[in-house]
């Protein structure tokens, strides 16, 4: 193994001998490097077909990894929740007749958000806030 690089240990830990869990930084392991963070709102028609919106563009030329948190439509309570969950998720009730789904996805140029919900309640417009982080690190090159 190459014997070069940088290690920084936690207070009280010997940087030369401690395990990786006691290192604050170890240059052998890449950090997730943040390209951009942001927030947005998607407004869509409940009880309608899938909705797909642009969240952010990027010019990386490869598919980046990302983190996505979103408000969601609570199909059990038939109301919007203002709390945030990690997406993607797919909730269903009544054998799949009542559903809500949230599915962000990335391409070589964009981060997009596909969302939909159906309860049959007749509610029309729903607005959900979301939070995203796009990383410089591609999913296949860590």
């Amino acid at each position, binding site marked *: 193994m*190459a014997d070069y*690089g*940088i290690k920084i240990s936690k207070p009280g830990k010997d940087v030369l001998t401690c395990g990786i869990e006691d290192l604050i*930084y170890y*240059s*052998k*392991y*890449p*950090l*997730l*490097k*943040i*390209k951009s*963070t942001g927030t947005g709102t998607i407004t869509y028609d409940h009880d309608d077909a899938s909705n797909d919106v642009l969240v952010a563009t*990027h*010019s*990386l*030329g*490869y598919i980046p990894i990302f*983190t996505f*948190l979103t408000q*969601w439509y*609570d*199909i*059990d309570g038939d109301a919007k*929740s*203002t*709390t*945030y*969950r*990690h997406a993607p*998720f797919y*909730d269903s009730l009544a054998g799949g007749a009542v559903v809500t789904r949230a599915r962000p996805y990335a391409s070589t140029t964009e981060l997009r958000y596909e969302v939909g919900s159906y309860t049959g309640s007749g509610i029309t417009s729903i607005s959900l806030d979301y*939070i995203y*982080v796009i990383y*410089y*690190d*591609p999913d296949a*090159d860590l």
Partner: protein
Amino acid sequence: MAEDYGAKVSKDGHDVTATPTEATRKNFVSIGSTDAHKIIYSGYVSATSYTHNLGYVPIFFAFETDSVTTPTYFKPMENSPYGVRATTTQITNLTNPSYLILLHRG
């Protein structure tokens, strides 16, 4: 903006003196001028909620476990209508006990 400040560490096989571009930042282990997550909290929680009072919704990872002293498993917490979620002040619907990691967004 010229990046003539900070520390850089490149991955094996990549020139650390090269100026990072949008397409080549992935070739670095770390770049002083590029943001990375900072861990706000990492530890066990012996309750079904954790109050952070950050004023914003943090990135979080939550794991179900069976002990805060001698855990035998970490299981990613259920992502369902009844599972873990975040607000600007709390992480709620945690299993008890759990292991929680909160990250500053950047």
